[in-house]
């Protein structure tokens, strides 16, 4: 049995292992999963000298309280997160985007994410996890991935099978920017909606509902009127698709989304804005802005370059 491990004192609300996710499985109904906020996932790994596709602990709202046993290891938290590190005689307030060295008996207490949803805890090493279809990402709906596909639970022990020899402490000044609008590309059923409905979609604010999770984000606001048909023949979905069911309230597909759906698609969130979209907590206001495909492609390229730049500076 491994002598380096974590014990979960408090699991938090929705704490899972996530990595890059799994592909080539939509046709049997298995979504990508993986870290919701990809950029923060990558930064977390880089800060502790991990391979960028290593598994991290993802949490939402209230995070886990963890006790570490074993030899010295680095840890880092990314996102907008309030946490503390408790050592033998002291307790320090933690800062995101900095790595810390922890040792036997130290505790990490992740109190909450701040005006955001997801945060990431990376440890400098490798968790001992089960892989399914080349990923340890936990999909709690289908019970796929490590930990029997279930959220982390109180009292649980998580072993590490490797600790990085590189224990350099790292830091970056990244700030999670908020954006005013979520940019979208017109959906394949855009013309199903009335002129007024289309106008409402682009000009009004929607509120993120508390019925949002890793599968989807439900929005509340003025109803979007459908004038053609409130159902379509079920067909493939991708993350970011905005479906509008008969009740007129949009639902945005997120990383654990259903692979097939039968509600008309009014739009699709541009890839460039996905990481920031998933961080919008219940009660946040969303406004959509239309962009075309070529702009979306260019903006994503720039976003990706920025991510690579950030990583190279760590």
């Amino acid at each position, binding site marked *: 049995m491994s002598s380096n491990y974590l014990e979960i004192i408090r699991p938090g609300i929705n704490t899972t292992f996530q990595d890059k996710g799994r592909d080539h499985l939509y046709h049997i109904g298995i979504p990508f999963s993986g870290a919701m906020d990809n950029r923060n996932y990558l930064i977390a790994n880089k800060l502790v000298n991990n391979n960028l596709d290593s598994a991290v602990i993802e949490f939402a709202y209230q995070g886990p309280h963890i006790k570490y046993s074993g030899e010295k290891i680095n840890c880092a938290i990314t996102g907008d997160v309030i946490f503390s590190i408790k050592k033998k005689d002291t307790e320090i307030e933690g800062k995101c985007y900095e790595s810390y060295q922890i040792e036997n008996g130290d505790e990490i207490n992740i109190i909450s994410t701040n005006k955001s949803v997801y945060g990431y805890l990376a440890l400098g090493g490798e968790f001992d996890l089960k892989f399914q279809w080349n990923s340890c990402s936990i999909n709690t709906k289908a019970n796929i991935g490590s930990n029997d596909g279930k959220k982390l639970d109180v009292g649980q022990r998580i072993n590490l099978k490797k600790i990085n020899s590189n224990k350099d402490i790292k830091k970056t000044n990244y700030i999670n920017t908020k954006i005013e609008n979520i940019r979208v590309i017109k959906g394949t059923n855009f013309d199903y909606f009335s002129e007024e409905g289309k106008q409402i979609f682009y000009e009004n604010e929607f509120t993120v509902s508390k019925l949002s999770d890793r599968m*989807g984000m439900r929005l509340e606001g003025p109803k979007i009127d459908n004038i053609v048909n409130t159902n379509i023949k079920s067909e493939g979905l991708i993350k970011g*698709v905005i479906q509008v*069911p008969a009740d007129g309230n949009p639902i945005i597909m997120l990383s654990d989304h259903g692979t*097939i759906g039968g509600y008309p698609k009014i739009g*699709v969130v541009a890839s460039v804005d996905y990481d920031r979209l998933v961080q919008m907590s219940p009660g946040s206001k969303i406004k959509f802005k239309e962009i075309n495909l070529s702009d979306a492609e260019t903006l994503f390229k720039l976003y990706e370059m920025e991510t690579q730049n950030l990583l190279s500076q760590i």
Partner: protein
Amino acid sequence: MIKNISNLGDAALYCDFGNEVNKSINSEVIKYFQTIKEKKFEGINNLTPSYNKLIISYDLKKTNFKEVKNYVENINPEDSIDINSKKLEIPVCCHENFSMDIKRLEEILKLSREKILENFLNKEYFCYMTGFIAGMPFFGDLDENMRAQRLETPRVKVPKGSVALTEQFANIYTFESPGGWNILGNTPLDVFDSSKEDKPNLINPGDTVVFKEITLDQYKNYNE
């Protein structure tokens, strides 16, 4: 044949094979799906065949709409590889504990509970596709007088095993999940098994199934 290719967002191709739902169009979709899957085009990371559409998603870091579209337009789909279709019997319990939407169906279809069950059970249905949630099969076609629309607001939680209807289709919820279909009963059968990475789905596109009614007692004892 593909009638039209457009973009679904900035990271997927939307291939439209038409609006009708029938075995012939569905076979065309499957043919393209299998051909592209075999060829492993760099950057394509998922394929979602459905009744009459094929969604091809790709990694925007590796390729883009123009490249994938050009690729798809120039492939010759090979004749569908034999998919070894099976015939299966699905036990279903329609006790009031499970048939959550029977009243709604009675009202919409203007048929009695007995008539609805008689129309649904002991008939052969064809599996067009799997998905939405892991392993969920979509069957068709229900009789004309059995077709109801989805719920106005989808349920946040549909119980695992639910057998549900919408329009000319039936499905099985392999997990508890959100969903908007009209729930008629529940099967104790495990339709998806993630421990079998090669073949996690019990039912695959091309298979034929027949729903057989079981009692509540038989349901409770099924997995013992």
